């Protein structure tokens, strides 16, 4: 059975350095949760404590409600896929898969059956007799995955598991991983620094920086509602606008930025900013429209295009505006005129397109 994981005020310090700083987190059983953060953020240390390879300096870790803070890794019954896979080089693929079962004293015939079943599950039926060094990176990855799943672990932990693979292969394995998760219902805890991977795979993303949880939530909610500049910047691309609040009504407010008067809607229940105070907003580049003339009902600022990058499906446009440099992403397949450097245009966005950020500097 899959288990939930609960972290209660978990801290890990190395000397004076706090790698993980008072983290509390609830991972419900059967969820696919991604710990996302830049390198050195403490996400791997957090995973190592869940796995049992690093001991928490303070706090408690629970699995299915049971305290496992000081339990050695071999008793936790968690599967782990290491960065670099850590396959046993002196054993064949089949022997690698059999290892966790043999350790548990499973009967020989059952081991053979299970190994066969797992090899089929990860599409490596014919490679059981090969040694890890004779496999490609993607195949090694699948072996590591199968080895971590063969003993029906309560939780599967994945440490930067796909980062070493090329983009196309990675996309294929991401899908396989999602399928496996859906089929097995095991709790997956995935660590990565790749925000696209996090967005496409997870039920929930936990963003970590400087050893702390910055924000967590479903991928869509997190992408559309970043609370801080760090989250908006780390998860996707964003324009940042600093303004001074000039008037406030019930559902929206006006602010001045770069000599422009702009309007911003407030989400229901959000506190209105103080009159005369500064606000900082994040605006996703794909929410901008690039137009020849201003639209009266929406926000619009004049802009001069300085660079256009063709990205296949989109144009990525950089422009100078009274608000400072801004970027926009517009689809390339709509038959519109191709933007070019030097064009004078209007960048336009709706009142509810931007997100008001908490001041986190």
């Amino acid at each position, binding site marked *: 059975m899959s288990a939930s994981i609960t972290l209660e005020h978990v801290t890990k310090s190395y000397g004076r350095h706090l790698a993980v700083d008072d983290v509390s987190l609830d991972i419900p059983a059967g969820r696919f949760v991604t710990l996302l953060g830049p390198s050195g953020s403490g996400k791997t240390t957090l995973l190592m404590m869940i*796995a*049992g*390879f690093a001991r928490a300096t303070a706090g408690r870790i629970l699995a299915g409600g049971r305290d496992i803070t000081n339990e*050695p*890794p*071999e008793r936790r*019954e*968690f*599967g*782990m896929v*290491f*960065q*670099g896979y*850590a*396959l*046993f*080089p*002196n054993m064949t693929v089949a022997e690698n898969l059999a*290892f*966790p079962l043999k*350790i*548990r004293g499973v009967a020989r015939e059952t081991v053979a059956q299970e190994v066969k079943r797992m090899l089929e599950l990860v599409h490596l039926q014919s490679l059981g007799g090969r040694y890890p060094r004779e496999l490609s990176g993607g195949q090694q990855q699948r072996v590591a995955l199968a*080895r*971590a799943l063969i*003993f029906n672990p309560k939780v599967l932990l994945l440490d930067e598991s796909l980062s070493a693979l090329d983009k196309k292969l990675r996309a294929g394995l991401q899908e396989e991983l999602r399928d496996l998760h859906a089929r097995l219902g095991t709790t997956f805890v995935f660590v990565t620094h790749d925000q696209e991977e996090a967005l496409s795979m997870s039920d929930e993303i936990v963003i970590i920086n400087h050893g702390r949880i910055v924000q967590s939530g479903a991928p869509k909610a997190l992408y559309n509602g970043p609370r801080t500049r760090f989250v908006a910047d780390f998860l996707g691309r964003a324009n940042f606008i600093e303004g001074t609040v000039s008037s406030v009504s019930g559902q929206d407010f006006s602010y001045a930025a770069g000599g422009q008067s702009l309007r911003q809607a407030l989400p229901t229940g959000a506190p209105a900013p103080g009159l005369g105070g500064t606000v900082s907003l994040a605006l996703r580049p794909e929410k901008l429209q690039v137009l020849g003339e201003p639209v009266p009902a929406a926000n619009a600022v004049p802009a001069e295009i300085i660079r256009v990058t063709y990205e296949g499906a989109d144009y990525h446009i950089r422009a100078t505006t009274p608000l400072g440099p801004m970027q926009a992403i517009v689809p390339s397949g709509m038959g519109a005129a191709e933007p070019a450097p030097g064009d004078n245009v209007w960048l336009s966005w709706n009142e509810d397109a931007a997100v008001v950020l908490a001041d986190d500097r």
Partner: protein
Amino acid sequence: MTADMDAQTRRVYLVLLLAPLVVLAFVYLYPLSRVLWLSVTVPTPGFGNYERLLTSSAIQGVIWTTVRICVLTTMLALVIGYAIAYAAVHLRGWRGELLLFFVLLSFWLSVLIRAFAWLTLLQSRGVINTWLMDFGLIDAPLALIRNEFGVVLGMVHYMIPYAALPLFANMRGIDPRLVPAARGLGAGPVQSFLKVYLPMSLPGLISAGILTFIFSLGFYVTPALLGGGKTLMISEYIAVQINDTLNWGLGSMLATTLLLSIFALLAVMSIFVDLRKVFGVK
């Protein structure tokens, strides 16, 4: 050697290789073969000297002592060397380097000085016995030298770096995540070591074992000083035959036997391991 090397360069290399070979042949291989030749010519032509291997209980005793001491020395040096190499690989940062530095440091001390240092420590009125008696722990001095204990102690001390360094080189090539991986898959610390780490370090153990054992066979100074003539190993026995009893035929027979045994040992080992790797050619 690259394939596109032209014939002239090749010839230059050949000459450069030949020159030392010729010197070696004249000053080393030729005299050596002369000495070995003595074993079948002195005192009378024939294999009379080699018959003594089968008939003389004194010679059989010396060979047995030598093999026993060398096996014991090799095993102890491997165990201690394994522990040192493991620590040097797994200690963080400078600590591992410091440990390795101390291992290498002992290379700088001559075998003679080390044997005398052990004498100072171990003899009946040496440092250790004096202390033990001063503290009233023993009444009469312990026999720490002039026996196999002293010889093995001195030899193990000398051989530890030779055991530790090949093991260190081997262990550094083992992925440090393998043991955690085994633990994560359900194996306890002991099982993880026995089933994953030990098999991975086996090539290092074999290399270190071969080096240590062959070196041990030829030990002369250490057994002579710490064995004090009581524990006789083959090198010392040969020296006695050559220098004291002037029994050159017997001495060179034993030297030949030693040399051939080592070659035979290497030949057997080469079935299991790549000897070029053991001696660092590859």
